[in-house]
């Protein structure tokens, strides 16, 4: 896209005056003015390549009128453009005919048939008969570009959308054209498949059926598809999607283009995880994530047996009702909708009176920090002058957020200061790297914000500091004096390190750079919505502390917790020690997600009762007393909240299997069984209750959410951003979207009302994000490791052993085995080589694992990904070394070769 400013130019388009933004391509300006110029290679989210030549128009210039590609040439002041002359028509028809000459026209067996721009253009303008009587070019069809993407070279029209996406948007130029003339073909490099987390986007934007993705191939015909717009809950980025189904099964997800979040892109995990919904759930063990939970179950004589809902509800209600509030707790909730989260909080905190509710699984951040820091939006972060990355690897954790942030740095608008230890997605684009070893983040931040002593402390590490004075000088220059234009991404870069270090570092940045804003990179689905709904000890719904909770809540809540409850780790310990008797586990897989295997094992095998609310199997489900089947992902409506605080709607596309219910329904039934009433007769009732009882969500009613101005979601509190109408979609930008006849959310009714914020909110961006107070800074001592130990770093991988990946056959095959990555220097010290097996020993336990050298891993550290199994295994390997009771994990490594 050419740079657009607020300046405008006026030009003549087919005889009428049209105003364009300065630098705007003719094709885009014409489109806004209602003239649609045909196109193939142009994509509004990518640089124009101007090579298909379909968009030729006549432009009058000093040398007479010439044919110019309207996607590439910017509208200029006084320019005279003609899009409908005979010359233009002949050139465009010529291009179309050329494109068809070698095209196989196997539309009847092509997945694109029915939603194909080439087909559509041909029907509209094309010749009725072909003049091409020669032999068409032939290729073996199809060939695999990767495990997910197949290429039919006969159908390819060489538009270069896929290759440009890979290079320009994903920064992974793994596909390119090979050959010359009409034998040009899209190709991978020898021995390097197109293994990209974003490969599905190339399929989405391919204007013909040349690229297909294995999960959708031959799954449906476009005219049989039914679609609804929704939000991906694969992670907390919250990409807008169209969920398409055929015969009651989800068949495909397409990214919807929103200016605010995903620009139309999705990651492959978000795109293909739907496969898990369609799994034939009953074939697997209860502990297997591929198992769908389709019926309520109650443990009878030691076995979980299917029962009716009323039986299960009554059993769960008696467990909850007959236990003292301080002995009841709940773990999880990030996979819930906002409505589910609000309903559960109301039941747990407001009906039962326990405050031991925690949506995070010992792998998150202090919620008062998350909610207390000034928040940035994704757009603000993408447009920041300086971005400080103090989080895990965003490509692994929040893939499309990474695409948005990378764009700024790749075009050299933003400078990135990357504090990651180990390979990071920003390796190629970061302006400065200040790798922070576990425990070092506060010192690195101190050094960054002007404390020269901190540099000396860092240098005391046996292997020295990980960066030099030049790097710190450059970084200091980039952050400036008060943090204006600085956005900080905070998250957990390692689960082998106490969150306190990054939390303290974030607080220190906030103190030193008061104008800086923060984007909390908590990754799990709707974790931000769950925190907003009060699913953390000490919090009430609406980003307020329990003490500050509005008295109006008493209209809904019959009780209010009297003391601060337990976090997840504390609850697990209390279960082990007998202090917590009943635990509701909300969609969480404790065995896989909590970074302390021992503790989980002890809690699960204690005699504390577990009420598991779940859509998929897990070891937690298998250990439960009562199992309540829940509708998940595209089986439910409601709203979800992403990491910038944007509330957007979920569209229900399919019905949940068997007897699964939406959470608000089970909560309502449980409350009733417990002798109170939660006034939720419908999902809309819950949404509207949130708009009343949660201060941060005031005014966010179903009618506002249903308005066209809320199509891209709404950042709460209202007034944070100006609402706008979504611009009309270009049918060529996302071909499959335009072809399905209906897009939209059906669930809500209601019209735009006077409460709809509009232009009047302009400039009202000083709205406080929340009323939660920031925590105090604590003094932290990280111990310098002895010269023999390596400090463990354990970050996330996109393809891990989590439910979403494990339950989707296409994705599960892509998970790479766990290895230990160390700097070549440390490898040398222990006399091992890449590929050798080593024994690692922490205070907690030992493991034997393959080792690999990695130049990005700082000396003195060892990196093993979290929730990834060793080759052929499905257990989270690194758990053998982790211990949630220590601040950092030091390990000794010895070579076994």
């Amino acid at each position: 896209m050419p740079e657009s400013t607020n300046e405008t130019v006026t030009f003549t388009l087919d005889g009428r005056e049209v105003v364009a933004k300065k630098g705007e391509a003719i094709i885009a300006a014409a489109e806004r003015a209602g003239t649609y110029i045909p196109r193939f290679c142009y994509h509004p989210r990518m640089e124009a390549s101007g090579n298909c030549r379909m968009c030729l128009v006549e432009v009058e210039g000093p040398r007479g009128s010439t044919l110019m590609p309207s996607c590439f040439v910017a509208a200029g002041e006084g320019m005279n453009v003609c899009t409908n002359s005979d010359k233009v028509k002949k050139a465009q028809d010529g291009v179309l005919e050329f494109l068809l000459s070698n095209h196989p026209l196997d539309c009847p067996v092509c997945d694109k048939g029915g939603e194909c721009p080439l087909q559509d253009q041909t029907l509209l303008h094309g010749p009725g008969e072909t003049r091409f009587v020669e032999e068409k070019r032939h290729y073996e069809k199809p060939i695999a570009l990767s495990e997910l993407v197949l290429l039919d070279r006969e159908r390819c029209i060489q538009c270069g959308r896929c290759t440009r996406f890979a290079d320009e948007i994903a920064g992974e130029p793994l596909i390119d054209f090979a050959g010359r003339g009409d034998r040009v073909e899209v190709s991978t490099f020898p021995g390097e498949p197109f293994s990209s987390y974003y490969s599905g986007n190339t399929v989405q934007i391919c204007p013909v059926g040349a690229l297909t993705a294995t999960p959708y191939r031959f799954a449906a015909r476009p005219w049989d598809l039914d679609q609804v717009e929704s939000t991906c809950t694969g992670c907390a980025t919250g990409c807008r999607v169209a969920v398409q189904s055929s015969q009651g099964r989800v068949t495909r997800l397409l990214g919807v283009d929103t200016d605010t979040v995903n620009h139309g892109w999705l990651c492959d995990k978000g795109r293909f995880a739907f496969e898990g919904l369609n799994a034939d759930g009953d074939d697997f063990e209860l502990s297997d994530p591929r198992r769908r939970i389709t019926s309520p179950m109650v443990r009878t004589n030691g076995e979980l047996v299917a029962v009716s809902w009323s039986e299960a509800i009554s059993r769960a209600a008696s467990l909850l009702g007959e236990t003292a509030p301080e002995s009841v707790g709940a773990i999880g909730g990030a996979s819930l909708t906002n409505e589910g989260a609000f309903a559960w909080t109301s039941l747990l905190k407001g009906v039962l009176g326990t405050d031991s509710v925690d949506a995070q699984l010992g792998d998150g951040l202090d919620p008062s920090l998350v909610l207390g820091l000034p928040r940035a939006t994704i757009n603000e972060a993408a447009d920041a002058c300086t971005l400080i990355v103090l989080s895990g690897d965003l490509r692994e954790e929040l893939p499309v957020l990474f695409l948005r942030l990378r764009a700024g740095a790749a075009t050299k608008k933003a400078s990135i200061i990357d504090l990651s230890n180990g390979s990071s997605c920003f390796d190629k684009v970061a302006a400065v790297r200040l790798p922070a070893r576990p425990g070092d983040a506060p010192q690195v931040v101190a050094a960054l914000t002007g404390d020269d002593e901190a540099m000396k402390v860092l240098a005391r590490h046996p292997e020295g500091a990980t960066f030099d004075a030049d790097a710190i000088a450059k970084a200091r220059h980039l952050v400036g004096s008060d943090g204006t234009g600085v956005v900080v991404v905070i998250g957990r870069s390692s689960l082998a390190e106490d969150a306190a270090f990054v939390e303290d570092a974030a607080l220190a940045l906030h103190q030193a750079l008061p104008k800086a804003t923060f984007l909390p990179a908590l990754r799990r689905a709707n974790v931000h919505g769950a925190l907003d709904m009060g699913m953390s000890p000490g919090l009430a719904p609406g980003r307020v502390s329990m003490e500050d909770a509005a008295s109006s809540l008493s209209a809904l809540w019959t009780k209010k917790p009297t003391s601060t409850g337990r976090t997840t780790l504390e609850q697990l310990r209390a279960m082990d020690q007998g202090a917590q008797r009943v635990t509701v586990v909300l969609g969480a897989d404790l065995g896989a997600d909590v970074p302390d295997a021992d503790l989980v094992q002890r809690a699960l095998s204690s005699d504390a009762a577990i009420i598991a609310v779940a859509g998929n199997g897990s070891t937690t489900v298998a250990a439960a007393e009562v199992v309540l089947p829940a509708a998940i992902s595209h089986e439910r409506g409601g709203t979800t909240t992403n990491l910038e605080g944007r509330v957007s709607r979920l569209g229900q596309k399919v019905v949940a299997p068997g007897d699964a219910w939406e959470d608000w329904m089970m909560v309502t039934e449980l409350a009733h069984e417990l002798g109170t009433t939660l006034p939720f007769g419908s999902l809309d009732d819950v949404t509207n209750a949130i708009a009343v009882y949660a201060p941060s969500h005031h005014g966010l009613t179903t009618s506002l959410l249903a308005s066209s101005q809320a199509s891209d979601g709404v950042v709460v509190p209202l007034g944070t951003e100006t609402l706008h109408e979504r611009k009309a979609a270009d049918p060529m930008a996302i071909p499959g979207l335009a072809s399905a006849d209906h897009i939209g959310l059906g669930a809500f009714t209601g019209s735009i009302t006077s409460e709809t914020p509009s232009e009047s909110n302009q400039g009202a961006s000083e709205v406080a994000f929340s009323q939660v107070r920031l925590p105090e800074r604590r003094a932290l001592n990280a111990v310098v490791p002895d010269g023999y130990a390596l400090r463990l770093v354990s970050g996330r991988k996109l393809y891990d052993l989590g439910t979403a990946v494990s339950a989707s056959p296409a994705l599960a095959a892509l998970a790479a085995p766990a290895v230990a990555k160390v700097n070549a220097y440390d490898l040398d010290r222990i006399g091992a080589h890449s590929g050798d097996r080593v024994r690692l020993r922490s205070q907690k336990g030992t493991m034997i694992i393959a080792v690999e050298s990695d130049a990005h891993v700082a000396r003195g550290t060892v990196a093993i990904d979290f929730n990834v199994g060793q080759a052929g295994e499905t257990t989270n390997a690194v758990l053998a070394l982790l211990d949630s009771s220590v601040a950092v994990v030091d390990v000794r490594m010895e070579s076994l070769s």
Partner: protein
Amino acid sequence: MSLTDAPKIITARAQYDDSHTLERFLATGGNDGLKKALTMTPEAVQAEVDAASLLGRGGAGFPAGRKWAMLRKADVSYLVVNGDESEPATFKDHLLVERDAHQLVEGVTIASYALQVNQAFIFLRGEFALGLERVQEAINDAYKTGALGTNIFGSGFSLDIVVHPGAGAYICGEETALLEALEGKRGYPRIKPPFFPAAIGLYGEPTVVNNVETMSNLPWIVLNGGAAFAALGAGRSTGTRLFALSGHVRNPGVYELEMVKHTFRDLIFSPELGGGVPNGDVKAIIPGGVSAPWFYPEQLDIPLGQDEVAEQGSMLGSGSIVVMDTNTCMVRAAWRITKFFSRESCGQCTPCREGSGWLERVLWRLENGQGRMEDLDLLLDLCDNIAPGLGWPPQQTTICVLGPSIPSSIHSAISRFRDEFLAHITQGKCPHA
């Protein structure tokens, strides 16, 4: 190689068997032009080149002096020498790089000094195995003798030259594709605007791209003055030019001739030049490379000058002249040229990529007696969809001019030799076969 009595500017040294050696170079005035240039200001050198009216020898014939003046002022800028020469029947730079690489290096150094660039690249056709060796030797010699590197001949001016072999794609001769290839990318012509590498060139920096022959003229121009060069030839076509003569002539070869002073007929028929057509007579000639519209016997007396040829609706282009005698099958000739373009299209633009292949297949059918009457209109209409109006210079629907060059031979052949096409169709075979 045959030579005439005309003044020799760039092939003077080539008459010696050891013309490629440093010894011969130094013994025959080597580096004199460079040494003189270094005593002048860069502006003064530019002024001489401007006065010489040296037209680019790579095909487009753009005045070198004017191109240099367009170089955007910047901290870093480059000179890139185009030695890709991959068009069929074009082989004049081949001679220069093999027989007088030192002259080329001297010319490049003079140009770099005039432009004040400190890094130059010579992009040579990869198949020029000997040429690559000789140019590298000449560069090594220049470094050794102080004619290249830091502080050249004590002048304070420094230059490095890197030789880059092409990988066998004709399109890399197009200057923007060449720059992409130099950057290590796929050789795709860049989309215009920007129209000139002088504004945005190699690695985004201002860059002058000139042909090998253009560069080779510089030592003489500096030594003898722009006016002396301009005194040769006539009108805008000054100095001498290399003509690569091939096809149905007795003495194919490279000839250096004063511009405009000779005609196509002289070149083809003079006993000391082409020596005439051995079998039959001239049926058609390609006056300036396979992109150029053809000439016929009645045009043989046109002088060998840029504007003189352009006025007749074709181009002198790269100076390669192909003679086709009366026994030539024009359908086959058009097919052969089209096949070349179809293989060498870079494949970016639909009209060029698909059009070239389609045209080639139709022509092949015709040549093999499987043509249909409607094929002639089809061919012309497809050509019109690549180069609307079929004029010369062509209008284009594509990114570079390779595409719009494809119709030239087809249009020429059908316009002039329609009967031959019809004979192929009615006889069901090639009448010449």
